[in-house]
């Protein structure tokens, strides 16, 4: 496949069809979501007509490994799945390790409640991710890639499978890709319905056919990963961003965002707002602008009491911090994580204490059961929180909850155990009065039955 052929396909499509731009909101910047709802996801030609596979071609012909990584580093792209580790540095790690075989994995095991961006990208722009994976493989010197897709995403499985098939047919995958003498192929693996398999080491165990439990780090995947070989695991959104950065250059990406959090991020907003949905916005936008501006504020007659950022791995943000920018650094200080960009808006009909319990139960249900702090500790947290919700709590329970949370946070094996306590900790920090009200048999939202025993 040469550049001429690519342009040939492009021109033949453009002659018959006009693509128009789509935006959910005027303030949106459609950088990564450019093709979403615009092209037919099953048609590789329509993707090529929108400058598809040009970035992979460019990476293979005009650039070398170092210059790709340099470009990614320059763009300031950070991992979009929650860890926010700079992608360029991650890639340079696994490139620097010498091995006869290397792997790259696309983590499409999106399981955080309130997140649905990966799904949209997988279902509506699958080729952008396949292309991102090809670029990543070139940069990391990997000859084999894996798509680890969540079991529940049946449609995504189908689109990616067709995309890989079409790309292979045109010679973008397989032996000697783009006729440039480089071998790379992708295999799809379907998860078995476990949240913890979104954690990179558990994901690799799962691909190896083992029980999905996380491994101890170090050794990091970049040194010893899948099948004991250096492995790079990237999120769907990260790979989609990589494609656009290589295509349009680092400047087109890093002109958006804040100093340490460059580029745009796709936020998925759900909950009690007038216009929930997904929006691609520059990092650094304030929560207030996002919720009251773009999502058009609370439902009629209601007030927004809190915002949950990052799902069960994030935290509740109280009103006094709504003006702070949504980026990676500030949220680490606030003990919440931006996570993958999922935002749940809460109004007065929802009880935050009850929601904490829901997230803890989620964490326990999804714990792999390997290490004791996560497996047993979360269970004890639930027991205490349940007694508070049932109106049987004691004042010292709050201190116990805090201690347990801190302990689980410090000694868990993997990110799942560490992050399950985040919502509870942030709620205890920002909304302690709600817990005290529950101890006094009162629930503002009238959700918990904490008063019944004493009435």
């Amino acid at each position, binding site marked *: 496949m040469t550049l001429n052929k690519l342009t040939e396909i492009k021109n033949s499509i453009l002659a018959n069809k006009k693509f128009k731009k789509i935006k959910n909101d005027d303030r949106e910047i459609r950088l990564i979501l450019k093709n979403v709802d615009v092209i037919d996801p099953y048609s590789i030609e329509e993707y090529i007509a929108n400058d598809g596979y040009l970035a992979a071609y460019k990476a293979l012909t005009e650039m070398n490994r170092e210059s790709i990584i340099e470009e990614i580093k320059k763009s300031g792209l950070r991992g979009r799945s929650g860890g926010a580790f700079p992608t360029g540095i991650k890639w340079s790690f696994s490139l620097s390790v010498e091995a006869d075989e290397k792997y790259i994995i696309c983590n499409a095991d999106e399981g955080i409640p309130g997140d649905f961006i990966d799904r949209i990208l997988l279902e509506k722009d699958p080729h952008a991710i396949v292309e991102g994976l090809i670029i990543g493989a070139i940069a990391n010197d990997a000859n084999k890639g894996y798509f680890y897709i969540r079991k529940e995403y049946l449609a995504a499985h189908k689109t990616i499978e067709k995309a890989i098939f079409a790309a292979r047919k045109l010679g973008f995958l397989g032996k000697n890709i783009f006729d440039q003498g480089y071998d790379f192929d992708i295999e799809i693996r379907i998860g078995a319905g476990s949240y913890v398999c979104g954690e990179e080491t558990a994901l690799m165990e799962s691909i190896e056919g083992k029980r999905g439990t996380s491994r101890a780090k170090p050794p990091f995947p970049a040194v010893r990963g899948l099948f004991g070989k250096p492995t790079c695991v990237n999120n769907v959104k990260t790979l989609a961003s990589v494609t656009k950065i290589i295509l349009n250059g680092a400047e087109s990406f890093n002109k958006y965002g804040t100093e340490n959090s460059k580029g745009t991020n796709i936020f998925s907003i759900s909950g009690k707002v007038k216009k929930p949905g997904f929006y691609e916005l520059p990092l650094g936008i304030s929560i207030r602008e996002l919720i009251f501006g773009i999502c058009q504020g609370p439902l009629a007659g209601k007030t927004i009491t809190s915002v949950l950022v990052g799902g069960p791995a994030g935290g509740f943000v109280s009103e006094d911090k709504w003006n702070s920018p949504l980026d990676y650094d500030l949220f680490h200080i606030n003990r919440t994580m931006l996570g993958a960009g999922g935002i749940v808006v809460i109004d007065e009909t929802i009880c935050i204490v009850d929601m904490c319990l829901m997230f803890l139960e989620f964490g326990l249900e999804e714990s792999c059961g390997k290490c004791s702090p996560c497996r*047993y500790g979360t*269970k004890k947290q639930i027991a205490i929180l349940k007694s508070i919700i049932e109106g049987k709590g004691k004042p010292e329970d709050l201190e116990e909850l805090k201690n347990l949370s801190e302990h689980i946070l410090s000694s868990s094996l993997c990110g799942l155990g560490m992050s399950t306590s985040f919502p509870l900790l942030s709620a205890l920090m920002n909304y302690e009065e709600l817990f005290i009200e529950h101890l006094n048999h009162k629930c503002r939202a009238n959700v918990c039955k904490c008063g019944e025993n004493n009435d």
Partner: protein
Amino acid sequence: MIKVNLNGTEVEVEKNQTILEVANKIGTYIPTLCFLKGVNETSQCRMCLVEIEGVRGFKPACATICSDQMVVNTNSESIKNAVKFNLELIAGEHTFECWNCPREEDCELLDLLRYFDIEHKYSKNRNKFTAPNSVINGCNSIVFDSGKCVLCHRCISTCNKTTKKDVISFHNRGENTIVKPVHNLNISESGCIYCGNCIQNCPVSAITESNSVNEVLNLLQNTNKKLIVQYDSRIKYFLTETVADYSENLAGLFQEVGFKHSFDLSVGEAVHDFLLNDEIVKNKTVIEASDFSIVNYLEIYNYDLLKYLSKVKSPHTLQGIFLKQHYCKDLGLNAEDTIVVSILPNVSAKAEIEREEYDYKSLKDVDYVLTFRELLRLFRRVGADVNIYDYAEQEKLENINYLKKINYFTKNQKTTTTLLGEEVAVDYIVDINTFAETFKQIDSYGYLNFNFSNSFEFYSGGQHHIKSYDLNQENVYWKNIAKINDYIADEEIEITDIEKIYKKLLNALPEKTMLYTDFQKRKILNNK
């Protein structure tokens, strides 16, 4: 060489050493629970947490490799609190039944709880927490008790390392995680060969041998039955290691408990050697299964080799036949009222004696098998005068590898074996991981002895003939044979030819066929 700062002391360490290894070397105590060197290094119990300067969160010492200029702190207040918290959580889920625990005081969890002085904060009666508890007793060898399990993963790693068959695994997830035979199968269907290595490596007693102590105790108190005990002579090592005041008076101990007669296994071993010798002369290549788990292994996974497997029954069952058929009559006992109890180091024997071919005219060869530690339980139950060493303190000081402490279960580390009283050198020691391949090349070896230590031993010595021995020589083995002779011969005879003794021994047994077993290919549900 790189330098590491451990609690303020500069230590020079080699590359690729873990923090735990370094700490052990300089004598700094780091608690461990799931760690078992070379077997289980999954770092999931979070007991060996340490602080490393510049690293977020605590890191497990057992899995963290030292890097240059690393500053490690192992005894800060926050580390201690984290370990205590973890132990409190584990204790909150553990079923404490220390009074009937097969581990006695020799429990790694108990040692840790004692060392850190743990408050039983989350016990069931103080709070509303309940643990899912299920006891899986699917065969007569091995029992799983999830209530005692601390989910350390040791048994699973051990199973993988020993047999490569992965018979045990975690099931479910989160709080419902439980260790069971794979795919929720019954143990007897799972492909387990009952080697017992998981029992040996369990830090608590979540996997144990099935308990026969109660039944034996009931029989001891039932005056109609006469109990005869026969023991593997390795019990002496075990007792010297575990009992503080063991004075070598084993017969006295057995009598105190209520056994009528006690023997070591020399009769059975003699008969076994004799019959085996016949087989070796005839077939040249013979696999001797010194542990019944080898028979299980070959029957389930390697049935092509069954044709080489020695068909002679194991020494303790042969002696059981002898005791019931001959010895009882001599003493005027009724064989039906006689119970033979074997004291053996391996759990597989518990399954062995239940097999059909070990039943002769509805008279079992051996009625009960007790493991060494079960015997200790029995002694303690009836109040026999045994005091157990408390290793806890010594352990902390010397940092003994835990394997050392529990190796009585398969204490068979010899490099030579005796066949008919003659020393035979080991020809090959084969790593456990490659033994299946070695089995395939078996034709090139003469004689194979299969020992369940960490390696298997191969002997070639196909042509062993019974020779005449000079009995004036100081040889305990032959003295034992002479002693047996007292049982089989009414008149005293001068022993000059050892072959005569064997002939007499065999003549004392009713039918020759009952001395052999037949092994067949066995199908299990989990056939990989």
